[in-house]
């Protein structure tokens, strides 16, 4: 009782603000300007994935009076980086599923609907039930949209049957992909792995799928009966030259057929035939026993069709969010920020990018709330543990310019190691969960 009255004796607001400053320090943020700390700004976050939840947690700690709303209907949290391990039989599907409610800060208002229309000129978002949500500040964190429809004849419900595989669509699809890969790894045949021309999330995932399938073929006896191919719609298979060469050498060691500037344009699932369109527009069709489809990706429709999307440049086609690549602030609407895969910035689109960019977005948003210029800058950190086989991996970390930026200088990013495998298999998910809570 006495401590309660003591508490009411001191200025409660000051007490809360002091607590907020401490929490902000814990969250890795610098000093919070008083104007931001006291602000009761309406902050709306669209998307409760890796970026959205992580930002909500950090903002809830840093801004005790802010009115924070998060919009997303999805209640199950997908640990997307684990899907490659599900799709190759190393993890059970249950290991990548969690509940968003377990990570949602209690003082955040969670609207379980989808953002349908962005009206940045009116500072409001309209949801798919027609609810109007007004904001002072907006963080767009709604990830990517898989455009399987761009591949004629593709049906995500058929994943797992007739040799059709695709790790990307969902944890279910990843588990069914393992059904297809397991069969292929025993029976062998013609296996085709694809890479589209659009930006994709985790550019290493299609490569991991290929390398781990090669390993499964060795383990399950199908290697002698298998011919594997990798058809990339780009000029290479990975954006960093050294790794591109490493991968092409690895593919060559397995007598893989590699083709560039070949985009998967159609699939006949029943007949197991895939059609590729070449750069000159010519098409050719080939039969397969296993086809691993990587869908073209773009920003979710609500972003793509809004004033928030790029209208020119190489990010316009996918309707990606038009943010400044350094501050992650929107280029036209200063009260809008973007975080995660939705951003129209070079490279990125990994959970590791989210981990490094969330503190930048939060710091800059707080500056803007305080009426200051956003000064924290993001270097484009992207990371991808490239699983080269079961039991070995490479930890690749790089920035916008493709410079290698290893977190731990004693880890050689060009060496395959068991250490990196342990990181991926054991340590990265716990770290990811800490990121969701706003701790890393």
């Amino acid at each position: 009782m006495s401590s309660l009255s003591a508490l009411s004796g001191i200025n409660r607001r000051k007490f809360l603000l002091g607590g907020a400053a401490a929490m902000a320090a814990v969250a890795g943020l610098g000093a919070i300007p008083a104007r931001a700390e006291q602000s009761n700004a309406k902050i709306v976050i669209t998307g409760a994935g890796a970026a959205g939840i992580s930002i909500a947690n950090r903002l809830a700690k840093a801004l005790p009076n802010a009115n924070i709303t998060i919009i997303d209907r999805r209640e199950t949290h997908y640990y997307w980086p684990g899907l490659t391990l599900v799709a190759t039989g190393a993890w059970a599907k249950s290991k990548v599923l969690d509940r968003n409610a377990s990570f949602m800060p209690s003082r955040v208002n969670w609207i379980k609907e989808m953002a349908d229309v962005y009206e940045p000129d009116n500072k409001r978002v309209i949801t798919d039930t027609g609810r109007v949500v007004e904001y002072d500040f907006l963080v767009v964190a709604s990830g990517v949209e898989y455009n399987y429809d761009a591949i004629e004849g593709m049906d995500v419900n058929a994943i797992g049957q007739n040799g059709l595989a695709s790790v990307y669509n969902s944890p279910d699809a990843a588990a069914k992909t393992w059904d297809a890969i397991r069969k292929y790894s025993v029976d062998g045949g013609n296996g085709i792995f694809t890479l589209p021309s659009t930006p994709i999330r985790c550019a290493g995932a299609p490569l991991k799928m290929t390398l781990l399938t090669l390993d499964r073929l060795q383990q399950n006896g199908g290697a002698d009966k298998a011919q594997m191919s990798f058809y990339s719609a780009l000029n290479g298979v990975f954006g960093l030259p050294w790794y591109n060469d490493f991968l092409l050498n690895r593919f060559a060691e397995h007598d893989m057929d590699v083709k560039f500037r070949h985009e998967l344009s159609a699939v006949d699932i029943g007949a197991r035939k895939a059609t590729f369109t070449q750069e000159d527009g010519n098409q050719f069709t080939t039969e397969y026993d296993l086809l691993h489809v990587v869908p073209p990706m773009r920003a979710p429709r609500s972003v793509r069709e809004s004033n928030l999307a790029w209208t020119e440049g190489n990010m316009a086609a996918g309707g990606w969010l038009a943010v400044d690549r350094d501050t992650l602030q929107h280029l036209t609407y200063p009260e809008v920020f973007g975080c995660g895969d939705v951003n129209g910035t070079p490279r990125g689109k990994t959970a590791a990018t989210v981990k490094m960019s969330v503190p930048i977005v939060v710091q800059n948003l707080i500056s803007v709330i305080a009426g200051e210029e956003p000064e924290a800058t993001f270097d484009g950190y992207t990371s991808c543990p490239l699983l080269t086989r079961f039991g070995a991996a490479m930890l690749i970390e790089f920035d916008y310019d493709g410079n290698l930026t290893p977190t731990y200088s004693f880890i050689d990013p060009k060496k395959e190691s068991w250490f990196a495998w342990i990181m991926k298999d054991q340590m990265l998910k716990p770290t990811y969960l800490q990121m969701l809570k706003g701790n890393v």
Partner: protein
Amino acid sequence: MEGLSLGFYMMVGYAQTHWLVIALFILGAILLNAASVMKFGGLVKQSALKPTLMVGLAIAVVLFLAIPTLSGSSFAFMAYWLDWALLIFMAVGYAIALLLWVHPIVRLVKGV
């Protein structure tokens, strides 16, 4: 500094993920030590130290040999000094932790 903080939270996250195993391990250690203290008094007995360390060493050797396979890998892929450092760290670390079980068990078996 950033690397240190990341490493710290990585370990916190790992501990949280495996909280049940850790809780059962601690509970087991408390029960076993309580049983040996109640029966023979004193938390550590000099006469049980040598066999405890021998068993601990044996556990470390077994773990050293088994961890690569248990983690879905193999000795063939351990080509980097860091791999060996991690393997030794894990084998020795788990073995040291297991001493909390081994010592009271040795005492109960030897009756000291």
